[in-house]
Every structure is written in structure tokens, then in C-alpha cells.
């Protein structure tokens, strides 16, 4: 599919999704969840698919986004818009630091360091009552005033959907750009890429920082739409759930991550089902996809489409010509 056609199709699907969830408050809740998960999954997708770096601190980055918004709303409501750059900056610096410390080590080191950071942030949220409100979190988060306009819930959700579309489109563009190609080259063979002058470690750190910024946006959407934050929304469990999305959807395009988010929410209706056999099912599905069909759902659909088209083409050829 050409880039322009992909953009048009996905934009149309996004608008359709937005119109569909407009119809009820319940669907809007689920839609918000899709947006939050999709942003988290896109944040994870960027370093994972382009650089092969698996970071597991996405609960922490989302928490930074949500809590910075909450703290600004509580202490300096007039400056709420300022929370956006502040939170993104904190996340990016942390992600870059974690990436820098493990830059010469294996992907396993990065995974463990980021996982420990995620756990430490959750502990901090629970135990630092003065700043984070402890186990009860922070409520009454205000809606930001954007140039004199106060968006209502529906507009916020609409903004969230557009954000997902923009970021997925941007990542798709990045994949094909020179930077994206350099990132993928260093994933295939770090030595060869480094020998060709690709700054491998710097690119990986850049991708990790960009991914963390996207995940921070997810936390902000969650805090602004729900008007409250709770520490237990940001446990390590969130990371596992989000990890499955890009894999299930397919790693070949960022839209796989979005599709994965949609599928997970559609099949779990939120977090509760995931506590029981649902989590096991998704874990097994992910393992199965990794082992048997690494292209994921979108890859499978593309292969099916190709086969159908070939089938039609073959059928159209007259018998004598074979």
C-alpha cells in the first residue's frame, strides 16, 4: 500500500472509530482505553521494531505523564499546559539515561534495568503520600484551557484519536526515512552498521527516548479524560499487557500496535478479564505469534490479500496461455 493511501485509509478508519464510540459513554470509556493502550503500544513499538530494543518501563513513563498533569492541576492549575513539556522532558531524560547505562550491554540488561525502574516508580507512587497522594492517588484533575477553549470529554477523546493517528503516521514515515533505515540496519547487524558510520548507541537511545515521550502522552490522556490518577493503574502488569499489542498486531507497521490495542480492549473489555484466564490466553497467543506467525495479524491479513489477488490474477489468465 502506498504511503498516501495508507494515510488516507487509516485517517478514515480513525474518524469512523471516533464516530462509533461517540454513541455512548460506555463506548467512550473503552475508546479512551484503546487510545491509551495504542499510545503505549506505539511507544513500545518505536524502539522495539526499529532498533530491537525492548524497554519495560512503560508503566513508569505513563505514570510520569499522568502524575505530572495531576500535580500541576493541584498546585498550579493556571500552568496546566506546561505539564505536557515538563512530563515529556522527565520521561525522555530517564529513558535516555537507562539506555545510556546499558548501551554496550545486551538487550536483556536493558529489559531488566527498565523493569526495575518501572517497579521502583510504582513503589514511589505508593509510598510518597505528600507528592503523589499514596494509594488513593490524586483526584479532581482539571481540564486544560487551550488558547481560551476548554475541551469537553468528547473533544479530548477526539484529540486522543488524532494523536494516535499522527504518531502512527509519523512512525511509519520514520521507518522509511534515512534515520529509520539506519536504525533497522543496526538492529540487523550492529558491527556492519557501526562500520558504515551509523552511530548505533546514539540511535538506540534516541528511539528509547522518543518511545518514552509517546508513552508519557498516554498517561496524560488517561489523567485528563478520567480526572483522577491511581498508582495501581501503573503496575508492571500494564507493561506485559502492552507488550503483547505490537506483537499480536504485527511488527511490520506501527498500525499493528494500534490494531493490537484495539483487539486487546475488544476481547477483554478493560482490565478485569485480564486478571483471570484472559491474561494466560493473551500470553499464549503472543508466544504462538512469535513462534508461528511473526508477521502478526496485519501481516497475516496482508499475506491473505496477496494470495487472493494472485488467485484472481491466475484465474483471469486464459487456459491456453498457461
Amino acid at each position, binding site marked *: 500500500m502506498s504511503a498516501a493511501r495508507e494515510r488516507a485509509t487509516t485517517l478514515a478508519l480513525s474518524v469512523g472509530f471516533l464516530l462509533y464510540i461517540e454513541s455512548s459513554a460506555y463506548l467512550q470509556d473503552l475508546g479512551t482505553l484503546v487510545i491509551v493502550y495504542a499510545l503505549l503500544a506505539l511507544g513500545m513499538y518505536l524502539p522495539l521494531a526499529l532498533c530491537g530494543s525492548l524497554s519495560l518501563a512503560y508503566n513508569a513513563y505513563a505514570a510520569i505523564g499522568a502524575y505530572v498533569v495531576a500535580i500541576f492541576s493541584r498546585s498550579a492549575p493556571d500552568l496546566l499546559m506546561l505539564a505536557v513539556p515538563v512530563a515529556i522532558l522527565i520521561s525522555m531524560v530517564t529513558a535516555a539515561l537507562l539506555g545510556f*547505562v546499558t548501551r554496550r550491554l545486551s538487550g536483556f540488561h536493558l529489559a*531488566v534495568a527498565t523493569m*526495575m525502574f518501572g*517497579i*521502583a516508580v510504582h513503589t514511589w507512587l505508593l509510598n510518597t503520600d505528600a507528592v503523589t497522594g499514596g494509594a488513593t492517588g490524586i483526584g479532581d484533575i482539571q481540564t486544560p484551557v487551550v488558547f481560551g477553549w476548554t475541551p469537553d470529554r468528547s473533544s479530548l477523546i477526539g484529540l486522543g484519536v488524532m494523536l494516535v493517528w499522527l504518531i502512527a503516521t509519523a512512525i511509519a514515515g520514520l521507518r522509511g526515512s534515512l534515520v529509520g533505515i539506519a536504525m533497522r540496519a543496526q*538492529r540487523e547487524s550492529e558491527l556492519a552498521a557501526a562500520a558504515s558510520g551509523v552511530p548505533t548507541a546514539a540511535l538506540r537511545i534516541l528511539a528509547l527516548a522518543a518511545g518514552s515521550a509517546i508513552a508519557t502522552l498516554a498517561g496524560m490522556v488517561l489523567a485528563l479524560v478520567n480526572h483522577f490518577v491511581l498508582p495501581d493503574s501503573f503496575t508492571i502488569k500494564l507493561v506485559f499487557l502492552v*507488550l503483547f499489542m505490537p506483537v499480536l498486531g504485527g511488527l511490520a507497521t506501527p498500525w499493528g500496535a494500534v490494531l493490537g490495542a484495539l483487539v486487546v480492549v475488544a476481547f477483554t473489555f478493560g482490565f478485569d478479564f485480564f486478571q483471570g484466564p484472559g491474561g*494466560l490466553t493473551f500470553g499464549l497467543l503472543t508466544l504462538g505469534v512469535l*513462534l508461528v506467525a*511473526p508477521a502478526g495479524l496485519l501481516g497475516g491479513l496482508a499475506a491473505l490479500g496477496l494470495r487472493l489477488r494472485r488467485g484472481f490474477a491466475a484465474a483471469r489468465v486464459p487456459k491456453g496461455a498457461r
Partner: protein
Amino acid sequence: MELSLLVSCIETGAFYGLVGLGYFLFLRATGVVNFAMGAYVMFAGVAYASFSENPTTSLGLAIICAVSAAVLFAWITEDGILRPMALRVHDEFGAVMAIVALMFVIEQLASLAFGARPLLGRELIEGTAVIGGLAIDFQDLLAVAVTMAIFAVVAIWLKHGRYGRMLRAVGDNEHAARSLGLPVRRVRLVAVLVTGLICGVAGLLAAPQAALSFQSHLSFAILGFIALVLGGVGTPWAPLVGGMLVSAIESASARYIGGFARDYVLLALALTVFSLRPEGLFTIRVRA
């Protein structure tokens, strides 16, 4: 530091060391840092605790079930996941993803099979010894003794045993070992099964010490990994040294800073080791 604190510190260190030894063997055999290992330990521990909760169940049966579960998971990891995957993808991140997914699957299996409630296992042997005015449970002595015995056996096996020596060859250079005609696949499998066995025993020893739940595996995986990184891969004893160090730092921080700081101290420790000495205290030099 009080003596009783020292005893518990040594015992915890022995446990972390045991998990670190599991990491060590698995890494040498497959080149994969298997942090699903914490989940093997947790599953064996929770299974043992759950079976032994019923006073009529024989301990022997509970032990066999728990340890074989850990060995089974290790076997599935190698033959069901890592080897088939290595045939189709060559980059590392597929293995990292699969290991994380597997870790989650085992966690969910444990919560489905044994419930979410933390379970405390029955002591393997009862009674208390008094040494120099200090009362120590036989269970604690047993845990430390079994750990030391496992380390000694593994060290001797790697040095003199048939498969142990082949494992060192495979770990140093898999391609060279293959071209020399070593049965790489079988050597890997043997090492992986031994890893499962060690994890099973570690789970048995941990279950009577503290109540375990299906979520305990994360801290096992993390602490065992730090023990391995801190110790290095130079000798099979390195994870034990690393485990003792981690345990000492953990209990010192709990005593002087407070128990809440555990996660922060461990994070700081891991980041310090990663940035200053990621190769660990004991290293090996191998011509590639």
C-alpha cells in the same frame, strides 16, 4: 550486625546465588539471559506450598511434583521456544520478547492453578539447633547446606564431568564446538534441564521461608540476575559471591535506610554495576 540477621542474610544470599547459578548455566548453554527463571522458582515454590498445605500429602510427592514442574518449564523454554525461534530469526530481541511472554504465561498459570493468595510451605525438616547460644532452625541449615552442595557439584561437573566440559566448550564458542563434532543440541538440553532442577530446588528451599505468591517471581528474577551480573561468569562460584553481596546490600539498606527503600537501592545497585563493571567480579577470557 546481630547474628540472627547475619544468618538470614547468608540464607537469602544462598538463595539468590542459586537463582544466579541457574542464570549462569542457562546463559552458558544457550546465550540467553532467561529471566523466566524466577517464574520456574516461583512455580515450584508455590506448587510445593500448595501441596504441602494439606497435612496428609506426603512431602516426597509434593517435592517431586514441584521440582518436575520447574524442569518441565525449562525443557519447554529450550525445545519449545528458543530452539525453534533460533532457526527462523537471528536477532536477539525475539528471544527477549519470548522470554518475557513466557514469564507472564507461567505467572498466570500459577495464579490459575494455586490461586492468588500467598502460600507458606511446610518445613522440609523440623527442629532447631542451638549453636553458640544462637537458635537456628534446621530448615535454615538445610537450605544453606543444600545450596553449597549444589554449587560444589556443579563446579566439579563443569570441571571434570563429560557434559560439564562439553558445556564449557559450547558456552565459549558454539560454532567451534559444533565443528569439532560435539553434540551441541544435547549438551544444551542437558544444561537446561539441570537449570530447571536447580530452580526447582531453589523454589523448595524458598517456600518455607516466606509466603510466596504468583507475583514473587519478578523479584526472584531481578535479584538472581543482579547476583549473576555482580558475580560475573568467570567461575561457577561467581553467582554465589554475587548473591551474598546482593543479600548483604539488601539487608544493610533495610536496616539503615528502611524496608521501603529496597526497590530504589536495588535499582541504584543494578545501574551502578551496569555502568561501572558490567562484566562482573570474575571474568573469563576466551579467544573468539
